[in-house]
């Protein structure tokens, strides 16, 4: 068995893996990147549309251009990486086991592990569409890989379920490749992706967007021949009598992403309700020395935000290796973050009390869209620690705040902070 011994091992070479590896390397540590695909870059490689890099590089790039810059940096810094290599086990002692064709079984002993495995798409099984199981049903990202990387068209006439950004971008991409996209069907009353994509990917090509509907039946035995869509009520139950048939030979699903945390669980890392690991404000999981960043932690809207988070993770992991590893650390005293009204989840899950005087980055998503809201952080006695107005919140846009809790006057004995997004009181008065 081949054995490696490094300071930091990074699992995954997408935007999160590469940026965190670069930071750890710049801190003069030995780093190893492990990637299961045949080249570095991750999913960003297949996102050939533009719109990337406005925050990170202040210019508008395509996905491949964005990630190429990090690939180049990894190569310039001579960070070693293993391709075509699948990690199948990690443990809390920070041993990692992987396999590839050249070396067979590999053991990596690391002082710190950075989890950067990204997320996977929800499939038909995750949303329980009844009907036969013919060919021609793909997730949007899978179809994106076929079309943009491997050079195959998965079909001719499409229905896309879900109006997430990947779904809408694929609608345009397929139209450009000469396919017919009959409709994008969305169960919610509103588009779940960005307005920009709704305008430039659907409206530009007159692709119908059908909201408040979902696919309730799949037709065809060998190849899909069409779908039945039905209107849904407020509880997402289908309304009998509202069915419509749409003929198609391919159905794409763009119905959400799930952080990919099988390995994380093996190491005994606790997960939180968004599907990502529980982390503190240093992006350290419940297992000391294991860190997480990017879409494995929380699904981000922009790759630029992944990069920023991954850079922080690379730095804190390096600090850990240099100052805390191998030292006896007394139990961390923490404050717990709780999701209140209209907050789907909040990261980090815990704050180290030692860090209260630092600026801490909080990210969260709302559960439903709202306008003219108040974002509030409250302690367990309902004292307001922080508040901020916001004109507009929507589940598809992650909210990011940088807050110095000590300056906000947090009580030293605070145990939990509830984050809530509520209608502004003056709005309530108006409505009374």
């Amino acid at each position, binding site marked *: 068995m081949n054995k490696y011994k490094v300071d930091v091992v990074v699992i995954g070479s997408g935007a999160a893996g590469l940026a965190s590896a670069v930071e750890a390397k710049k801190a003069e540590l030995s780093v190893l990147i492990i990637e299961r695909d045949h080249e570095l870059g991750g999913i960003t490689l297949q996102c*050939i549309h533009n719109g990337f890099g406005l925050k990170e590089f202040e210019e508008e790039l395509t*996905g491949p251009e964005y990630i190429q810059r990090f690939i180049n940096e990894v190569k310039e810094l001579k960070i070693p990486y293993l391709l075509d290599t699948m990690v199948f086990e990690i443990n809390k002692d920070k041993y990692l086991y992987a396999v590839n064709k050249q070396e067979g079984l590999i053991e990596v002993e690391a002082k710190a592990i950075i989890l950067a495995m990204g997320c996977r798409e929800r499939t038909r099984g995750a949303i329980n569409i009844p009907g036969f199981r013919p060919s021609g049903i793909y997730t949007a990202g899978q179809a994106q890989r076929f079309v943009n990387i491997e050079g195959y068209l998965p079909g001719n006439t499409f229905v896309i379920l879900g109006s997430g950004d990947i779904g809408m971008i694929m609608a345009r991409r397929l139209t450009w490749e000469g396919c017919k996209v009959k409709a994008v069907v969305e169960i919610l009353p509103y588009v779940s992706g960005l307005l920009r994509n709704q305008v430039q990917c659907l409206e530009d090509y007159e692709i119908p967007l059908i909201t408040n509907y979902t696919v309730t039946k799949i037709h065809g035995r060998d190849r899909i021949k069409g779908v039945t869509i039905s209107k849904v009520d407020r509880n997402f139950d289908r309304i009998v009598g509202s069915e419509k048939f749409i003929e198609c030979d391919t159905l794409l699903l763009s119905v959400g992403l799930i952080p990919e945390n099988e390995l994380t669980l093996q190491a005994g890392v606790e997960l939180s309700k968004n599907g990502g690991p529980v982390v503190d404000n240093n992006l350290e999981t419940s297992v000391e020395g294991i860190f997480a960043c990017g879409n494995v932690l929380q699904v981000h809207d922009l790759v630029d935000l992944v990069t920023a988070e991954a850079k922080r993770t690379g730095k804190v992991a390096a600090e850990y290796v240099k100052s805390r590893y191998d030292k006896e650390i007394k139990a961390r005293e923490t404050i717990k973050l709780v999701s209140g009204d209209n907050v789907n989840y909040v990261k980090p899950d815990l704050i180290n009390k030692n860090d209260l005087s630092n600026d801490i980055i909080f990210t969260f998503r709302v559960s439903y869209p709202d306008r003219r809201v108040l974002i509030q952080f409250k302690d367990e006695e309902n004292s307001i620690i922080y508040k901020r107005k916001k004109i507009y919140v*929507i589940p598809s846009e992650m909210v990011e705040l940088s807050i110095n809790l000590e300056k906000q006057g947090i009580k030293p004995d605070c145990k939990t902070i509830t984050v809530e997004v509520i209608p502004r009181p003056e709005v309530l008065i108006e409505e009374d």
Partner: protein
Amino acid sequence: MLELSTIKIIRCIVCPTGCEIKAKKGANEKVTFEGYTCERGLEYAQQEFYEPKRILTTTMRIENGLLPLIPVRTDKAILKEKLKDVLVEIAKMKLKAPIKMGDILIENILGLGANIIASRDLIKLD
């Protein structure tokens, strides 16, 4: 008072507010814009109304490459109405690896003043 009629509704994508901007025309044929809430919104609406442009991102066939395709884009926005012609032109091409990110693959495509450039490096298949 001249009655203005709405000839086009433009949804502004400059920021998430998503203003609905109306292009209106009166009897004197002069077009005016209503519903924008910032200068950038007005600029966007004017551009969209008179000369909508888009960056085109697609793929091009490659021989001997690690992958059968390379992602490419126009190096500046081109007229929206020309997107299809450009796609057809790109589809006719087949290039050889290796290619470097930023390489100009088609110069001044269809005389539109934009080049088609490579979006990534692509090495030769051994």
